[in-house]
């Protein structure tokens, strides 16, 4: 099994300086941008993306071409690149920003052409200072070349790109929270409906919000074709995806593959096996919000649908491997703490519930648990995510609250004894 290099090809081939515009251009860079201005009308570009069947790489997996197709008519429309990558386990956008910023900018140019947009924002999480510098440098280079600014590529069209830094709030990855943040507000998710910013987004204007990886894929699709892209991967999960592999593996990192292989294959081939030759106790298939799989489930295929059918999600493409010696209660607590810390605080169940869960897990993991705590944990979870089903029902505005439920249901589902072993025995009032 091998990687299929689309998005990471350029950076692999130019390990020293793939982020510089000259190097990028020498390797066929900005050809997709030139091509669409010369050969295409916007509708054709959207069609090409639709044909590619690419689905958003930010987590929700919504078909990108369809989303572009929704964009409401308006004189003012915006493109916002979601580079807030903050889901624990995920670091794939970071490599795209740091190592191939021009690919992203080229994607932005093509997307803006397709959707008749003249102002784009790249919202990069604040902790990504270095990637942001790289992107800003690249943006400035592109301005100098006339690829951004007024009358780009002599097309008569204008396009401005602003790099905007977040400031430490995972929730701003949620697209409507991101828009609030970009408007200079608290990063609180907006109410749905409207379901898509494409109808009412930044400053209440139609706005496309797409993930870095999604838009970075656009130049390849245009240079080749939507059809060629769709040939890669499997139906419903076409193309390649950059998976971030971390945890107890020998060789963590980002790997670009066609979707469709199994997790076990992926971990063995690219992660080079588990550290100290241990076995896998559990792994997270798609970022911290995703329910865990156990070591017995390594055969599941890495496609959006297979993972969903098995009760989790491919999400942000982050695979976190936990070996046989992992203290799963602490692991779950780490994730629950994450969501408690990152809750925006709007909704009662998320604000109060996630913190409460964290407190209970803290108690259990430090040996102060009560026999009734398992039921309590599950019932608090149920009040955040009724029925504890997957995909979750929610009593909240956005999926962050229910995300904190995933590790607990995973823990209780497959590793209940591990929790019970930390608790005093239930006193059974039983006559026989």
């Amino acid at each position, binding site marked *: 099994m091998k990687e299929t290099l689309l998005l990471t090809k350029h950076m692999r081939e130019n390990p020293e300086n793939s982020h510089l515009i000259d190097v990028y251009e020498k390797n066929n860079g900005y050809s997709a941008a030139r091509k669409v201005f010369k050969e295409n009308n916007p509708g054709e570009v959207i069609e090409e993306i639709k044909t590619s069947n690419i689905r958003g790489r930010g987590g929700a997996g919504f078909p990108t071409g369809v989303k572009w197709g929704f964009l409401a008519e308006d004189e003012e429309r915006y493109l916002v690149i979601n580079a807030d990558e903050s889901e624990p386990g995920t670091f794939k956008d970071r490599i795209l920003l740091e190592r191939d910023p021009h690919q992203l900018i080229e994607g932005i140019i093509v997307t803006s052409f397709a959707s008749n947009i003249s102002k784009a924002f790249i919202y990069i999480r604040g902790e990504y200072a270095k990637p942001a510098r790289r992107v800003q440098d690249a943006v400035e280079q592109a301005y100098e070349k006339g690829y951004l600014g007024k009358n780009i590529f002599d097309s008569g069209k204008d396009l401005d790109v602003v790099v905007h830094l977040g400031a430490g709030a995972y929730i701003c990855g949620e697209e409507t929270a991101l828009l609030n943040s970009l408007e200079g507000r608290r990063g609180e998710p907006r109410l749905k409906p409207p379901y898509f910013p494409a109808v009412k987004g930044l400053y209440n204007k139609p706005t496309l919000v797409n993930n870095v990886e999604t838009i970075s894929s656009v130049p390849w699709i245009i240079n080749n074709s939507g059809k060629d892209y769709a040939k890669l991967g499997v139906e419903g999960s076409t193309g390649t995806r950059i998976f971030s592999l971390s945890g107890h593996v020998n060789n963590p990192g980002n790997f670009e593959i066609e979707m469709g292989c199994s997790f076990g294959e992926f971990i063995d081939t690219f992660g080079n096996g588990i550290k100290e030759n241990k076995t896998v106790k559990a792994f997270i298939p798609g970022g911290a919000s995703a329910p865990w799989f156990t070591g017995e489930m390594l055969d599941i295929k890495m496609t959006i649908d297979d993972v969903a059918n098995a009760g989790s999600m491919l999400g942000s493409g982050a695979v976190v491997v936990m070996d046989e010696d992992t203290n799963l209660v602490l692991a779950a607590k780490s994730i629950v703490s994450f969501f408690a810390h990152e*809750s925006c*605080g709007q909704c009662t169940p998320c604000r*109060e519930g996630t913190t409460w869960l964290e407190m209970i897990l803290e108690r259990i993991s430090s040996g102060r648990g009560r026999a009734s705590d398992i039921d309590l944990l599950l019932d608090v979870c149920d009040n955040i995510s009724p029925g504890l089903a997957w995909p979750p029902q929610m009593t909240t*505005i956005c999926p962050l609250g229910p995300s904190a439920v995933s590790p607990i249901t995973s823990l209780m589902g497959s590793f209940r004894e591990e929790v019970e072993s930390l608790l005093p025995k239930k006193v059974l009032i039983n006559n026989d």
Partner: protein
Amino acid sequence: MTENIKFTVNGNELEAKSGELLIEACEKSGIHIPRFCWHKRLDPVGMCRMCLVEVETPRGKALVPSCTTEITEDLVVDTESAVVTKAQEGILEFLLINHPLDCPVCDKAGECPLQDQTMAYGPGESRFVEEKRHFEKPIPISEIILLDRERCILCARCTRFSDEISGDPLIEFIQRGNKTEVNTFPDEPFRSYFSGNTVQICPVGALTSTSYRFKARPWDLKKVSSTCNCCSVGCSIELNTSQNKMLRILGEDNEFTNQGWLSDKGRYNFDYLHSENRVLNILSKEEDSFSKISISDATEMIKNKIAELDNPNIKFILGSSSTNEEYFVINEIANYLNKDKFLSKDSSNIYFGDDLLFEGYFGDQYSQAKLEDLDSSETIVVWAEDIKDNLPILYLRIKKAVKNGSKLIVFGHTNTAIAGLADFYFGKDIVSNKFELIRNPNEIEDLKNNIEGKKVTVITGKSTVFQKKESLDKLINYLNEKAELKVFNSFSKGNTFGALQNIDEVKGLNEFCNEFDTNAKNIVFTIGVNPVNSSYFSQKIKENLIASDFVISLDLFVNETTELADLILPTTSLGEKEGTVTNMEMRVMKQNKILPAPGSTLSEWEYLVSILNVLGENVNYKNEIEINNYLSEQYKNQEKVPTFDNLNKPSNLFGVLNKKDININIKDLKEDNFSLLMVRRLYGDSSTQINSPSISMLGAHKFIELNSTTAKKYGINSKVGNFIQGPNSILINIEINEYLPDDLVIAPINRRGFEDIDPSLDFNITEAKNREELNVN
């Protein structure tokens, strides 16, 4: 009108308007869905999640908040399913885990939605064994509001109110997630004219007012609906008393007028009722001191004085807090006393104590506006005294209309509070420092574009006592000609419209001073008015009262005016009397009685009727109802006659009265010093406010406003200075207001220290010198 559509709730088919919110539509059909964050007058935020219900979707049942879900055709809703009940219980448990449950010491207990809903929907006992979130117990966030962050359930009602409704976002969520709290910025207290509304809509006891704190339990309260008399909007209120003390005033949600809101003045200006300074006995002045006398002695004294002075001039200066019934009786007595004297109509003897009274735009050629007209106006034009200070709820209604798309055009230099809302603010290039319209209305493009052929509501009145009617005429005639126009005459004080409706002819204080003949014999009645304080004409009125032969004051307090009286007849006030008042839309509304008249006080009409009887005119009104019946007679041709009877029926609470002839007789003031404009602020040193401890300090802030060029001219750089005129020197704050034209200084006329300032004379402003001086209020 959108058509009704059908939807199903708990198996029953119901109807609603398309797009209506589920929570509201259910409520109308008697299905109550619990909620905390949702408030009918605020934009929904769906944050507390208490109102979750189940709806059917193509992918099965889903929990949705009913406060943000709009009704669609054939929506199927379950508000009582097991999933819904479980979710609601869960939410309540979440809300309670960090709530202190200090109900025994909480003002809200007994009327607390959290408490009520915990009873109705809540879990039995708490499973939360950890430590609750802690905050410092109540912190004052303004002079009148306290915040207890531990009790807060973060429903965002207060923050939304101050952002969306009142437009002074001075309280906000701070921090995030589980650490979120509501707070103010350290040096910026929650100083809003409308802050009390947040206390009223807070669903727990997180926001409390200093005035009501620990005063009563809701179950001890006696309540009655009434109408606020602080300004002519006539907000609907609920008076709450206990043991014959007024403890609280709440806003009632009257769709036509205040829509639930009140200004803090209207809400908190009532402690004076129980002030120890209140006059409770009839006082007669001998030498220089007052002594108690009986009502019969008092009326005799008046009769004798009239006889003794042998056909004196008898004049009345009126305030704005009388009821329609009282104005009616005042009109009667004035006519009676002068019946032999004045034959022609323009020699009436009634003066209204408002510097900004003007002739108004009444009569058939003008269409009188109603507050609801603002909502459907394409353009709203304001050229009047400062709306925010003088008609605060009108300000909110204008703000709301603007938010919903009406264009706002503001003229003049004194209405700068509203300038921030305005699409077009017409300052110095269009209006001179003398308040003349310098340009022809139809030459002002921005005006033309938003007026011609549009639905327009204008709020017009004098911005200052100097303003001549000519300029207003020019504007109003233009608007009337070019637009579909509705007119508000901005007489902001209390029941001014009631006075105008019930008195044959009204003149102003300028006319009083001009007509006062010091060589003649004069008797002056002042009724609920203090013109010696906070009038442009104060000094002259004071001289005239001193020169009068006999002054009779009907009032609540000894103040700058009544201390000049020979006889003080102590009167009743809000909640102590019954009657009707007429608001700026000419809507007649009821004031109700819930407190006994204190001491030997009587209502104004009772004194006047006694006097008439002593004078030999047999009038026999035994109570307010009889006067009202008589007064209503003149409206009997109308569809709705504002009798007490029908005003008390909730379904018919507020009749709108067609005006009868209104006669206002005002003469323009002659040219004067235009560099100092004295304007009335919401809070000031009125005798009622000064005697209401919980808000009296709000009227203490002394400040002037000018633009930076003018400040430079005076050589002022600091924020503090001295305002100097003759022997008077007042320590003031200096506020730079760039909306003002050059060479114009604005000062409050109703603030302590300014009572001796004469706007017609020269003055100077200097910087405050030493640091101690900087410590002004």
